[in-house]
């Protein structure tokens, strides 16, 4: 009886991987923040109080104990706005990869599996997409359609699918020639079933990595567009928008930028760490 190749249980391997543990914890915290924002936020994030404008956070002498992280230029509680801001970032991250993943994976699978003309057309579309500068196109589209969260998600989703397409195309190409595909045809399975139920599960390792990259990418783009005033609309709390609103006070009240900036940085780093770690974990297994 041959002993199976030695492998530690999944939980141990996950915990043994610093990137996955650390990234996962930070992401989990952000998700919790977004989901439970109404209960976590100490104050109403939209309530203005012009008498208490630009209060500093708790480590300053002038700090108000009611506003742990101070207030912004309209006197809104900064901690509450930061907590609500996680909602926008995560909604954009998730929404964008749902749209872009669906588009990219469908195109890539079809191109890699069918080859020939389908592949030529998809490759052309991918090349066209790659020749578009994302930020400029997003700016133009948002300017045309009007700034809102759903427009932002739709526009970014329609722009960020290229990596999904390229990766799933390559994976489908290498899997297509395996005999199990011919075997599925021999038992009478249709192309759609083979594509989505047989080939797709074999690419999850690669696709998870792309997914994390794109989530981070989308979150950063949302922040950038909001900063430029073309993302989330004004009363809503978005970390990018908060940075934009705080930029006039950058010299005297740097925490207005440092706090949302730091959170953004931590979230993007966490997502990337998680992706890297997951790639390492699944890499050895994916054959």
């Amino acid at each position, binding site marked *: 009886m041959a002993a199976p190749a030695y492998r530690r249980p999944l939980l141990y391997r996950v915990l043994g991987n610093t990137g996955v543990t650390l990234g996962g914890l930070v992401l989990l915290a952000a998700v919790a923040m977004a989901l439970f924002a109404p209960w976590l936020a100490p104050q109403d994030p939209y309530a203005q109080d012009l008498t208490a404008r630009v209060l500093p956070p708790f480590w300053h002498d002038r700090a108000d104990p009611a506003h742990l992280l101070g207030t912004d230029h309209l006197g809104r509680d900064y901690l509450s706005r930061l907590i609500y801001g996680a909602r926008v970032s995560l909604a954009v991250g998730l929404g964008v990869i749902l749209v872009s993943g669906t588009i990219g994976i469908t195109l890539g699978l079809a191109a890699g599996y069918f080859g020939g003309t389908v592949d030529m057309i998809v490759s052309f579309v991918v090349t066209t997409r790659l020749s578009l500068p994302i930020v400029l196109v997003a700016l133009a589209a948002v300017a045309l359609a009007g700034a809102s969260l759903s427009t932002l998600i739709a526009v970014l989703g329609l722009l960020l699918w290229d990596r999904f397409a390229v990766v799933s195309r390559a994976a489908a190409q290498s899997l297509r020639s395996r005999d199990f595909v011919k*075997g599925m045809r*021999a038992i009478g399975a249709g192309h759609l079933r083979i594509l989505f139920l047989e080939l797709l*599960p074999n690419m999850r390792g690669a696709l998870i990595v792309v997914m994390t990259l794109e989530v981070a990418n989308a979150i950063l783009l949302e922040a950038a567009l909001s900063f430029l005033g073309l993302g989330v609309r004004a009363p809503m709390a978005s970390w990018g928008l908060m940075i934009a609103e705080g930029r006039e006070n950058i010299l005297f009240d740097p925490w207005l930028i440092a706090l949302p900036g730091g959170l953004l940085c931590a979230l993007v780093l966490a997502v990337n760490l998680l992706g890297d770690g997951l790639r390492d974990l699944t890499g050895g297994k994916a054959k």
Partner: protein
Amino acid sequence: MTGRDDDIPALELVRATKRYRVSQGLFRPAAELTALKELSLVLRKGETLGLVGESGCGKSTAVNAMLGLLPLDGGSVRLGGRDIAAMGLAERVRRVQVVFQDPYSSLNPARRVRDLVAQPLRLHRRGTDPGPEVAEMLERVGFPARLAEAYPAELSGGQRQRVAIARALVMRPEVLICDEPTSALDVSVQAQVINLLLELRRELGLSMVFVSHNLAVVEHLADRVAVMYLGEKVEEAPVDALFRAPRHPYSRALLGATLPPDPAAGLPALGLGATAADPLAAGPGCAFAPRCPLAAEACRAAPVPLAAQGAEHLARCLRAEAA
């Protein structure tokens, strides 16, 4: 069709022809490659037909055609007397199934053994629980029940090939096509799989097409053998006749190149020179003529027909008597 039901062959290729266009580079016109050239084969019920030839001879194309996965450019494939192209999916699947050479690539690595075997049933017999049939089939192929939840990566080559066989047979097909099912396996495992196929063939009354380049294995399993060269059948005979008195020079070369485990046999004979088969360089005559030690002028001039060489023995050679 006339006669009793038993006379209808389980599987039949009638002048099956398949051509591919092969790109020869940017500035040259695409060449036409005939992968199957009017290939006719008959597999009688309960019989095992060996199909031998080297890479590029059209074996794989023939297998795809037999499975109904390949639109032909001419001729037809018939299962139980009915054209496979006109047949419904469910019926086709019930009549013919396949076991591939490489069990490392023929099982989806993302699925468990039980799922893999149940898949054909789930596709074609919705609503019934495939569990009992899957368990029975796994037991029949000698696969340990405790490994039914395993993934293919956790299994040995022999175990994987058992799973592949169980999956092919779970729909109880009449015809099983074995595409080099033992060539990727170790010697000791190869014997286990051959034995399993022998037992299953007897128990289930299977008709089998056994595709291989290993003549010793074909000799052991087959009743009749067809030899293919560049898409054509060059010889067909009962296994005895073919191994005792091959008539086509290519069949003789194949037999001569097979190495028995006997040091007294010495180094294999070289009847073919150093050239290899080139499908694009075929002239009007016999495709084997460029490599043939017996080739005469007449061989190169015009296509050579299949000619009877004895009872059920056909060979496509003008100089079959010259050897």
